[in-house]
């Protein structure tokens, strides 16, 4: 009987599929199986031995049946596992997703800047790109023949109509039509008759204006520091006196150079600072031009989107924005980092 157990043990080990297991089962406990054969042999034995023998055979039968069952489960598990293994795929294949398409970096930058100002409570306003001289210059305290007009070489449509040279005329348009208080930013295209490595005849600005009672230069500092640190991260910000005809006091705002962290490099002309925007307290003449009461004052600021985008993304040539090379645009995809 021991030899049968040994034989079974060795046979069951080598079984790998259900069919062989079935055959193995029937060769031991089937109708013509070895165990069944033992039962048949038992008839000729004395009762005492018969009982003892019967118990041992039953024990062996039970053992074999258990082992078969276990093996069967094992085979099931193995088969399933092998089926799964055969379903191996290459998970490194690129995803089934459209990898094309991107929002232009200028639009992307405008959206980012707007979002910051909207979170600070500013509305968004849009002004026309073709403007009256009156709104672009005169009402902003830049009369004809003012030397400040040299700062902004202008495209004219006729003597009184021009392509706006900055987004500031939106200030006039909104204030003319809206009683104070007002608080908005206004993005858009602006035009200057200038074209070289660092200048494009068309570029983008975003203007900001806040007019209310009791607005102070220190508030202008607070808002712009907040904005610049939200946009560029934790950079030092400094304000230095400058001149715009439509603000007084006026300031130019510098941030610590984000390329060299203020140590001085080519980008910041070794000053450690980068000039990023112009701002100031709205000039009393401008407020008078839109007939705002003397109890109101406020601040305005303007910045070049291209400059912000160039600094943020390390772009070194303004022309890239308007060539619209797909290889350039694709770097600003919602799936940034992907390759064409």
């Amino acid at each position: 009987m021991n030899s049968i157990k040994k034989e079974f043990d060795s046979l069951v080990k080598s079984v790998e599929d259900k069919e062989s297991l079935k055959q193995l089962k029937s060769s031991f406990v089937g109708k013509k199986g070895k165990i069944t054969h033992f039962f048949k042999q038992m008839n000729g034995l004395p009762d005492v031995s018969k009982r003892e023998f019967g118990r041992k055979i039953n024990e062996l039968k039970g053992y074999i049946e258990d082992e078969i069952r276990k093996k069967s489960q094992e085979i099931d598990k193995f088969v399933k596992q092998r089926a799964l293994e055969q379903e191996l795929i290459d998970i490194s294949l690129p995803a089934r997703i459209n990898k094309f398409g991107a929002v232009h970096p200028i639009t992307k930058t405008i959206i980012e800047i707007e979002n910051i100002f909207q979170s600070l409570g500013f509305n968004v306003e849009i002004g026309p790109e073709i403007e009256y001289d009156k709104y672009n210059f005169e009402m902003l305290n830049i009369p004809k023949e003012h030397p400040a007009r040299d700062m902004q070489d202008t495209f004219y449509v006729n003597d009184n109509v021009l392509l706006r040279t900055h987004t500031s005329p939106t200030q006039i348009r909104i204030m003319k039509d809206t009683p104070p208080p007002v608080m908005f930013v206004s993005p858009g295209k602006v035009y200057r008759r200038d074209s070289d490595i660092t200048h494009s005849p068309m570029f983008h600005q975003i203007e900001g204006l806040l007019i209310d009672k009791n607005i102070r230069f220190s508030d202008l500092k607070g808002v712009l520091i907040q904005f610049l640190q939200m946009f560029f991260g934790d950079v030092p910000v400094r304000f230095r006196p400058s001149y715009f005809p439509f603000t007084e006091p006026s300031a130019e705002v510098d941030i610590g150079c984000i390329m060299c962290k203020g140590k001085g490099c080519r980008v910041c002309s070794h000053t450690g600072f980068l000039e990023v925007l112009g701002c100031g307290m709205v000039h009393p003449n401008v407020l008078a031009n839109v007939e705002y009461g003397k109890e109101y004052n406020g601040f305005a600021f303007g910045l070049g989107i291209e400059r912000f985008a160039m600094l943020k993304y390390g772009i070194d040539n303004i022309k890239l924005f308007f060539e619209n090379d797909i290889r350039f645009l694709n770097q600003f995809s919602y799936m940034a980092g992907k390759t064409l």
Partner: protein
Amino acid sequence: MIVSYNWLKEFIDIECSVSELADKITMAGLEVDSVKKIETYDAVIGQIAKITSKNGLNIYKVDTGNGFTEIVSTGKRLNVNDKIAFVENGKKFKDTIIKSKEFGEFKSNGVILSAYDFGMDAPSDEGLVLEETAKNGAKLNSIDEFNDYLIEIEFTPNRADALSILGVARDIKALTKKELKYPNKDFKTNGKKIEDIISAKIENYANCPRYTLAAVDIKVKPSPFFIKMRLLKSGIRPINNIVDITNYVLMAFGQPMHAFDADKIDGSITIRNAQIQEKITALDSKEYELDEDMLVISDDKKAIAIAGVMGGEESSISDKTTTILLESAHFNPTSVRLTARKLKLHTEASHRFERGVDPNLCIDATSYALKLLSLYADAKIYEGIIDLKEHSFESKKIICKYSGINKLLGSNFNKDEIFEVMQNLQFKPQNQDNDSFIVYAPTYRFDMENEADVAEEVARIMGYGNITATMPVVSVSFKEENKINSYQKRVAEALSYMGMFEVINYSFTESSRLKLFDKDEDKFVYLKNPLIENQSVMRTTIACGLMDNLVFNINKGAKTVPIFEFGRVFFKDKDYVKESYKIGFLMWGNTPLNWFEKERFYDFYDIKGVSEAIAGISNSSFIYKRSEKEFLHPKRSADLFLQNENLGYIGELHPDLYEVFGIKFDRKKRILIGELSAGCLIERLNNINMYKKIPKIPTVTRDLAVVADKDIDVQDIISTIKNNENIYSATLFDVYDQLKEKNKKSLAFRLILKNNSDSTFKDTEIDEIVNSVYNEIENKFNVKLRG
């Protein structure tokens, strides 16, 4: 403007380093662009001992202070005893080591330096002659003028007062509280009276509020070394002692001056308006035609100078000049500016006059010039200075409040601090009462009008950094979303997710290109002064820019170009311009290459996908009608309608047009283009669909396949099916047009049935509905069930 640090120190004591100084004045509003030390490297001082000239070469025997050496030069001949700067072979100058050079039989042991070698505006072949006291063999930077820094300052247009060494020194005085050192202006007269030689009158006091003249007998010769050097550092070429001294005074004080050759003046001097078409040849040897709005200085016969802009050539200083008339005047800024602009003639003088020159500076500047002329031009000065003016020029009085200034700035500067700043700026403050004070802005401060201007002066001298940042307390509430802005964002995001690239093009283009897409030329808006011809008309369509982008990208090797732009277009509208928004889109080339889809080429249905997405953003649906636009393929294009409004088109570019853009027509790679007016789409941005109840019973679907004539529009069949009250939706899922019958196509639709009751459909009911749908389209479009 470039300011010499040494020169500046003659006007004020400076105790900090030059870089600290640059930082200080930058933070006070005079923006320093750069500070450069003058580098002399291994240059040393020598003296010409002997000159041999041969074959256009000058062979100089140079006293090096410890022997002699020979230097050969092809440049302008120097004189014996001239002190020069030179670098010996093997020594360094800038980035180079001077190497031995042979000129035929002669060998040069070094090079003689010119001012040009130090980056100054001077001829490169003219050796720089140093001061006579320079010591042979000493290093070049032992001479003060070579031991200097050049501070380049960018002035804002309001700071005319600072456009001189004195002007910069005045700001430093306010910042450092040091006293200004005015140069000595004493001179002696020769006993003769100016009336004996010249008289003058002003005809137009509005444009010439003050005119002064001095007369001097002089000797024309080269300027002393320090004057030449300082002019060179300022970017001005030295000419002779007379012209150089007028320029020197200009740079030092900011007062433009002019010297006339007195012998060339006919009769007396009049400041008058030019006559129509009056001509003058100016110092630049060019003839200018003047008009009656321009102011000239004239003698009895002709204009001798364009007032405030440039002198005339005829009366200019020459080697033979023995007597000069020295002009120092104040001209109206606008008048000078207009004249300079009309003549396109911008000079150091016009630059200052149009920004404003202190009317009280004339005599001081003249006095200083006369002193320099005494020292360096053997001057004998006529007694008296002609000084024409109608009135004196008073300081502007501005009343301010301490509290007003602090309120505007958000600062806490105390009264004494503010008072002191005003004093140091020479504003002569006077306290009125507890809070008010009066300041008198000096006559060189043309930018002072009101309290805000004074507040800026306080802030810039105290330092913007000393005002603590705060956050505003506002009463403004959020108004409403700006729809145009929101729309632009939505379009940019939606189309980029679809695989399109947003582009941004110039708003101006070429009219010939524009005409391809827009025949309505009368509406074009032209620029009066375009930069270049192909940017001379404002776009009325986005298409031109998209085509440019396509060509650019094809030339860069792109295989797939799906692009779009949202932007403005411009139309003439009487005297003004109407602006509106358009979305343009273009697709060309292979669909993006990937491993899971077969590569194909973009076709009409891809571009239609874009227009459908755009419709979706505004919760709208377009009607597509065949287009007759000349620039589109006649059979593969559509006009798009929203309700009854034509919003634009989509389609293949007409094959004839490819060549115009330099693109070879390829049957497979069609250019798909589309453009929509965005106005009413923007209006519909926030349109919503109301929720429709979902049927409780499970959806029943049936497929229906039919054969139809090729020229039937599927859209018509679909809308007929959808009109059936029992059909919820109909989706076309198969189109096959390669049937044996060439003029037929097979169409398969999946219908979702609409159950108008609450109970489940019976099979017979379903069959009935499908049959009724089939019968309708069979009757209307003569379709047959597909076998």
